[in-house]
């Protein structure tokens, strides 16, 4: 039989085939919805719970991947946070006010000459393989960092002033110093078990990720890790401070922040933090959602503007091309006087930040400093204009022109990845433009190259501050300057001043906390007056968690602080499961059943669809005969 069908006409039979295929697809989709074991239309908060019945799991969405599980190599915040959970440190920070409290060491005291510190190591801390944690472990850890260059990659800065570390007894650790050092209760170094780690050959290549569970003595034991997927930790029931309330904590990688927020909304994760904060849009969208609490605490970062004070090497060799006008304090102050911080906090940070002044964020009350009334550089464009006049930059038309006849045009380095930098850049352009100053906003993915080459006039600056302020203060000392021009160094923006350096040395050698805090405040006052940098704001830490999974959790500061990235392990150690004790995880069995049923349905539907298509094809072949 021969049939002739016009080639361009749609065929009724094909329509049937499309219908069949669509039906199969729709059925497949519906069937697949059964796969997770959650009935259609139901939310799935239990997904964040553990697979084993009765076990409670807290799932945290994280954006960063783990660079290394070796505490000797780990640099990223994600990894260092993990080592805090896996290993005990000598000391910890109190969740209330950040003061040093016992960790692996129960007490610590300096000698009269300030050069020897003796730590008493607790006798109730055990490694998870059953062996006792002793002072010998701590001494071995520090000695390894001091003597092996590869082992000093992550924590070498803590031991640069160490002369000798010994363990005269299992409960006594002695550290001898070259110079007095007030930061001896802030040694954020994970102590590892010597009996396992002394078998490691090359520390630069050992990532501690081959054998699980990893032996530790922290509040959690790391049990499983899959690159860029998850890290699992189980509660250490023998932890000397007490066992965590959740049986398991899982850090799940979400490379996209919006996807992480969606996972929280769905209940797949219990907690999501921003990097460093949820965006105002994300926070607003989560506010008012059922079973979700948006937590906003004082951030540990400051957001500042830095000027180029003249790039130089340690031996005073000048380099770079910073605008000479900024060497004049009056010009720098004029710039800062014409910034309306309230507008920036309201419009750019959308209220999720606090007006800035001192170098150390108010989150650390012991070191909090504020300028006096006559010192303060508030928003005063008129005064700014006067200062510019006094500095010799008169207004010619709508431009400020220097004595050399050149207009005052500046550049500011901005981080292309930070939308706040870009937005604030626009405001600065407008405000400084009104004063007659030109501004070019240079947004780069990595600003470090022009910064360390000294090829900038101003830059958006910001640091995350630790409970001990030594490091962020140290980056402005002359010792932090580079040895060679354009080489990256520990300096932040080439500040080198005798007064500041003396104050820095003084605070480091001052063992009385109150007196030390006073010196730190003097340093902040000097930084403010010098006008080399100006702190604009302290962005808040904005994060969210599911209240149907987490009943309570300790923030830091405890009164109203943040959860993720704390100094210590308080958040995950203290978290209490919602409905704890009521067997929240009853769905694991049904999950597997659901998966099997779902897949069976999909297979049946696909096989059926395929059979129908085959049959139809065979029919046409028969027709042809």
């Amino acid at each position, binding site marked *: 039989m*021969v*049939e002739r*069908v016009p080639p*361009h006409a*749609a065929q009724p039979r*094909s329509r049937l085939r499309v219908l069949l295929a669509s039906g199969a697809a729709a059925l497949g*989709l519906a069937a*697949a919805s059964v*796969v*997770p074991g959650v009935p*259609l*239309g139901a*939310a799935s908060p239990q*997904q964040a719970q*553990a*697979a084993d019945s009765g076990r409670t799991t807290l799932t945290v969405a994280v954006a960063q991947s783990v*660079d*290394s599980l070796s505490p000797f*190599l780990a*640099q990223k915040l994600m990894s*260092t946070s993990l080592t805090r959970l896996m290993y005990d440190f000598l000391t910890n920070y109190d969740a209330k006010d950040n003061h040093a409290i016992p960790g692996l060491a129960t007490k610590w005291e300096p000698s009269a000459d300030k050069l020897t510190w003796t730590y008493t190591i607790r006798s109730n801390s055990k490694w998870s393989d059953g062996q006792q944690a002793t002072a010998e472990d701590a001494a071995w850890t520090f000695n390894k960092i001091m003597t092996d260059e*590869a082992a000093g*990659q*992550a924590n*070498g*800065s803590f031991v*640069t002033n160490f002369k000798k570390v010994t363990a005269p007894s299992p409960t006594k650790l002695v550290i001898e110093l070259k110079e007095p050092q007030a930061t001896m209760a802030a040694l954020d170094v994970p102590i590892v078990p010597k009996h396992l780690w002394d078998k490691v050959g090359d520390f*630069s*290549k050992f*990532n501690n990720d081959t054998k699980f569970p990893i032996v530790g003595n922290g509040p959690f034991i790391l049990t499983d890790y*899959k*690159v*860029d*997927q*998850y890290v699992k930790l189980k509660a250490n029931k023998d932890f000397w401070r007490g066992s965590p309330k959740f049986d398991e904590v899982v850090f799940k*990688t*979400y*490379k*996209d922040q*919006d*996807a*992480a927020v*969606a996972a929280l*909304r769905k209940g*797949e994760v219990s907690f999501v933090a921003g990097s460093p904060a949820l965006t105002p849009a994300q926070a607003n969208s989560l506010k008012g959602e059922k079973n979700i609490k948006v937590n906003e605490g004082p951030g540990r970062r400051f957001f500042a503007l830095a000027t180029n004070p003249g790039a130089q090497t340690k031996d005073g060799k000048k380099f770079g091309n910073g605008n000479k006008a900024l060497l004049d304090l009056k010009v720098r102050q004029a710039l800062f006087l014409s910034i309306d911080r309230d507008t920036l906090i309201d419009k750019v940070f959308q209220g999720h930040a606090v007006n800035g002044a001192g170098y150390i964020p108010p989150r650390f009350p012991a070191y909090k400093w504020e300028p006096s009334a006559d010192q303060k550089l508030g928003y005063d464009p008129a005064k700014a204009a006067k200062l510019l006049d006094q500095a010799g930059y008169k207004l010619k038309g709508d431009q400020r022109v220097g004595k050399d006849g050149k207009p005052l045009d500046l550049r500011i380095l901005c981080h292309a990845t930070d939308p706040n930098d870009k937005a604030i850049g626009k405001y600065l352009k407008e405000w400084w433009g009104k004063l007659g100053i030109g501004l070019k906003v240079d947004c*780069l993915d*990595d600003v*470090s190259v022009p910064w360390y080459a000294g090829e900038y006039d101003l830059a958006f600056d910001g*640091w*995350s501050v*630790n409970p001990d302020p*030594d490091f962020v203060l140290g980056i402005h000392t002359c010792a932090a300057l580079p040895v060679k021009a354009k080489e990256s160094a*520990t300096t932040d923006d080439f500040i080198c001043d005798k007064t500041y350096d003396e104050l820095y040395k003084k605070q480091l050698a001052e063992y009385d906390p109150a007196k030390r805090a006073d010196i730190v405040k003097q340093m902040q006052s000097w930084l403010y007056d010098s006008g080399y940098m100006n702190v604009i704001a302290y962005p808040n830490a904005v994060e969210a968690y599911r209240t149907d999974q987490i009943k309570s959790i300790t923030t830091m500061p405890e009164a109203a602080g943040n959860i993720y990235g704390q100094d210590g392990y308080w958040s995950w150690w203290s978290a209490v499961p919602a409905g704890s004790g009521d067997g929240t995880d009853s769905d694991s069995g049904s999950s*597997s059943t659901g*998966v*099997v049923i*779902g897949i069976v349905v999909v297979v049946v539907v696909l096989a059926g669809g395929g059979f129908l298509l085959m049959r139809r094809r065979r029919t*046409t072949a028969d*027709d*042809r005969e």
Partner: protein
Amino acid sequence: MTADSTPALVKQADADTEGPAPAGPAAARGPRARNTKAYLRYVAAKILGAAVSLFAVLVTSFFLFRLIPSDPVKQMTGGRPISAEQLQSLRHQFGLDQPMWRQFTSYVGDALTGDLGTSYQFHAPVMDKIVEALPATLLLTGTAYVLYSALGIWLGTRTAWRNGSTSDRFNTALALTLYSVPSFWLGLLLIIVFSVGIGPIPGMFPTGGLESGNETGFAYVLDVAHHMVLPVITLVAVGYAQTLLVMRSSLLDEMGSDYLTTARAKGLRDDAVRRKHAVPNAMLPTFTLMFVNLGHVVAGQILVETVFSWPGLGGLFYQGLSVPDLPLVQGLFFVFATAVILANTLADVLYPLLDPRVGR
């Protein structure tokens, strides 16, 4: 390269057979031997060309990423207490204190022995990191590749055969629309609609990752399949259009041909004319496209892998670039380029077997 070669095939319209024309009567030994020799010469030339390209890529990859103005050491340690000695030690360990020419020669020398260096940030051989992430990428983009190629060919054939019909117009417009949609945006949309759920649509699929981490055995396989649904749909949705359009246009070119009229005239059903005569001829440009796309399977899809937190090569490349982790990014770039070059070479080598005029 065959990327631009889209020759029309010898028309096949043998009235006595429905299949492609047979090879013909056994050719004399002489011409066949000559043909084999010519083919081998052709293959050798292509392989040599590929080897030269690979070496060029190796050299380019070294300099390309050094054009990025960045300080890897400072980026990696940013925000952490770090001493000047540590900075110096890291720079030394990474070999960044060496002159450029020495870095280059040791890179090329090592690469020729299969060593792509050690990742700055992961303290592990680059090859290990690539081998670790490769299966996830192959699984995701490979599955998507098969699906979007099949869908593109099938729909391309349908739309061309019914040129001008409503379904043709609809399908072409839909394909062009999806082709223009940014993949990360579509991915996020799918997450919101099908993972979280909107209105009556329930949250059916996971929001990201390759597995939930609790399953073993067959349940693990199902779990991974479940995690793959949305990223695969995203890749297929934005990827099938290209195949569809190429298939459609090349089939349209064929449709006016005399050999199809002959086929119809001898009484073949329209379905058979399409499947056995028109489609095989129209497949050649699509075949080329599929091989080009095959090379990209390895490169992964950076944006889709990021949105769905897929632990593959795309995500790894993104992480490498953010530092920049020079050994990692140049190693990945080399592997990506190698995959494309190999796929193209394979296409070149196979092409003469499909179209005897090529390679002579």
